[in-house]
């Protein structure tokens, strides 16, 4: 693992055995994150974004099998943890989850317990990872709620999730994810269900905390506006592969992979023009039980080269500024 990285995923492969056959959901994903860096992950629905994030928490679905690869995390004391070599409920994993790595899920109700107050839930996390006294825990919990701009934090501690609006639940979950000053925050579509004004507030909050605590963030989203706003680097996923990774400006202004280019053209633009058809990518996403041979994108690629693209899996090509893409166009 390289010195300056906090997280490194190498050649991750995850599959599911189903009645109809094997679903290869993640097929050799590689990426790394530096301290204080925001990595945005975008890409096709069902391409393995959430599974990749869950592997970092060692919280994959029970029927998932990791067939290859590793996920390594560097703690602030320098120790490197080989996450997939740990048992799901090992002491080390419990220490990492919530203590070093915080996670915000798309649907806050799945992460918050409906039967405990917000305050109780934050304090449980604190008692697991710190040795604060009861009184100090209450104070810290109230501080956290104030930090995520919840009104009347002391009263909020007593509220139950169902008494809060969607935006407030999302903020409560962020407060919980941040309670132990994690060095890495995983945010899986945290604002997709929110209106744009609430979204702007939450992104603002994540960015100011990220700055203050030098926290690294992995941010999964379908929204290119959000990516443009918060990401330093971006990984683009298609059918279980990270097909391109680059600095955010290179992804938008100098994309190398045909899938990245096609995605960018599908964004609905706010342009005051009426009823133009939206651009789409030709064809359908392949059947997950029958992945294409060669390049996974060849069934839909406008720049496909017969022969090469349909039979050979492209290697990663490296460009300036740490840009990399998996496409034959760029191979000598």
């Amino acid at each position, binding site marked *: 693992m390289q010195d300056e990285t906090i997280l490194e995923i190498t050649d991750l492969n995850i599959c599911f055995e*189903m009645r*109809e056959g094997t679903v290869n959901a993640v097929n050799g994903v590689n990426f790394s994150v530096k301290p204080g860096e925001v990595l945005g992950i*975008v*890409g*096709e*629905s*069902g*391409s393995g974004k959430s599974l990749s994030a869950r592997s970092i928490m060692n919280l994959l679905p029970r029927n998932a099998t990791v067939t290859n690869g590793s996920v390594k995390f560097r703690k602030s004391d320098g120790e490197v943890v080989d996450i997939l070599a740990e048992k799901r409920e090992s002491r080390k994993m419990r220490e990492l989850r919530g203590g070093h790595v915080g996670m915000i899920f798309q649907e806050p109700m799945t992460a918050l317990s409906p039967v405990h107050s917000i305050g109780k839930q934050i304090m449980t996390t604190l008692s697991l990872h710190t040795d604060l006294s009861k009184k100090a825990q209450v104070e810290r919990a109230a501080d956290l709620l104030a930090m995520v701009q919840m*009104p009347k934090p002391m009263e909020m501690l007593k509220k139950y999730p169902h008494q809060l*609006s*969607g*935006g*407030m639940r999302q903020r409560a979950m962020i407060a919980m994810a941040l309670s132990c000053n994690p060095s890495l925050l995983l945010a899986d*579509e945290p604002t*997709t*269900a*929110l*209106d*744009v*004004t*609430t*979204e*702007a*507030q939450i*992104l*603002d909050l994540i960015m100011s905390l990220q700055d203050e605590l030098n926290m690294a963030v992995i941010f999964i989203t*379908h*929204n*290119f*506006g*959000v*990516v*443009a*706003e918060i990401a330093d680097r971006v990984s683009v996923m298609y059918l279980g592969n990270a097909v391109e990774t680059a600095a*955010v*400006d290179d992804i*938008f202004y100098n994309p190398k992979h045909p899938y990245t280019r*096609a*995605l960018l053209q*599908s*964004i*609905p*633009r*706010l*342009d*005051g023009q*009426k*009823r*133009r*058809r*939206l*651009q*789409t*990518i030709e064809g*359908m*996403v392949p*059947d*997950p*039980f029958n992945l294409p041979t060669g390049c996974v994108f060849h069934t839909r690629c406008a720049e496909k080269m017969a022969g090469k693209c349909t039979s050979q899996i492209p290697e990663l090509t490296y460009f300036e500024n740490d840009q990399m893409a998996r496409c034959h166009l760029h191979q000598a």
Partner: protein
Amino acid sequence: MTNIHVPDDALISVEKLQMHFPIKKGFLGREQGAVKAVDDVSFYIRKGETLGIVGESGSGKSTTARALLRAYEPTGGKIRFKDPDGVWHDLTHKSEAEMRKLRQHMQMIFQDPYASLNPRMTLLQLVSEPLVNIGVTNKSELEDRVADLLSKVGLRPENMSRYPHAFSGGQRQRIGIARALALNPTFIAADESVSALDVSIAAQTINLLQDLQEQMGLTYLFITHDLSMVEHISDRIGVMYAGRLVEVADTASFFEQPLHPYSEALLAAIPIPDPKRARAKKRGLVKGEVADPANLPVGCAFASRCPHASELCHMSNPELTETAGGRFVRCHHSADLKLQGANYDQ
């Protein structure tokens, strides 16, 4: 309020719709007030038109759609629907049996294609279920209809014996659309039906909905948080805040110049899909707390966050009123405000 004039070509009209959920407390479940999820909402949708609905999370958009289809029993107001024979029905006074007939014409597409499809049913069973429910039992007729519906939404008919987990999110969304189309509805409410999809599959789905609208003259209520999408698909736009409609306008005028301060705040917060422009212009932030529908203020619900609030705003709740230009707005001062429109992408 001034009654909204419903045009002759309307398919749906909603008058003073109200949906209050009781708050129950204690062992006896005694009622302690109500969540005013929808309060005094009035609008119409013309035949073949798309009305987009945007607004604050928790402002009552989904509740409005559900009440329209009578998935909820509204606590007040009137919903009228014109059937394909041109006969108006007052849905608020229909029995469940009468509603079942009318629901053939009114369908809903849900946000979550994963949760809304039963994983133990095949595609054939899922898409034919609405037909079976109205008494179609002939197996080959069902298969023909399903095959036809699947090809209409761009799915392969030969896959009809598969289960939903074998399909991607976008394909599952199409299964939901095929199901909604099974009974040839005239009206579809789409609640966040593309927000969980990647931009390319979302674009395919939107194009499909627009093609179907052209072919079959469908009428849509389209709920979303994505303002660029709503600009693309809607003829008119309604904005909700704290259970009420605060503005209704045709799409172009709305983005050009909104009339309600909350609409202005929404437009200022649209994320810009261009990193250089995003860095140059920070998204607008609205200060202050969201209104609590269980505890609404007496005055305008936006007053605590509105830069234009006056004493009047805190004391009295404005009505939805029609402007000279045929737009609707709920604000005491909108006539005197010159609000900012959207920043268009290049």
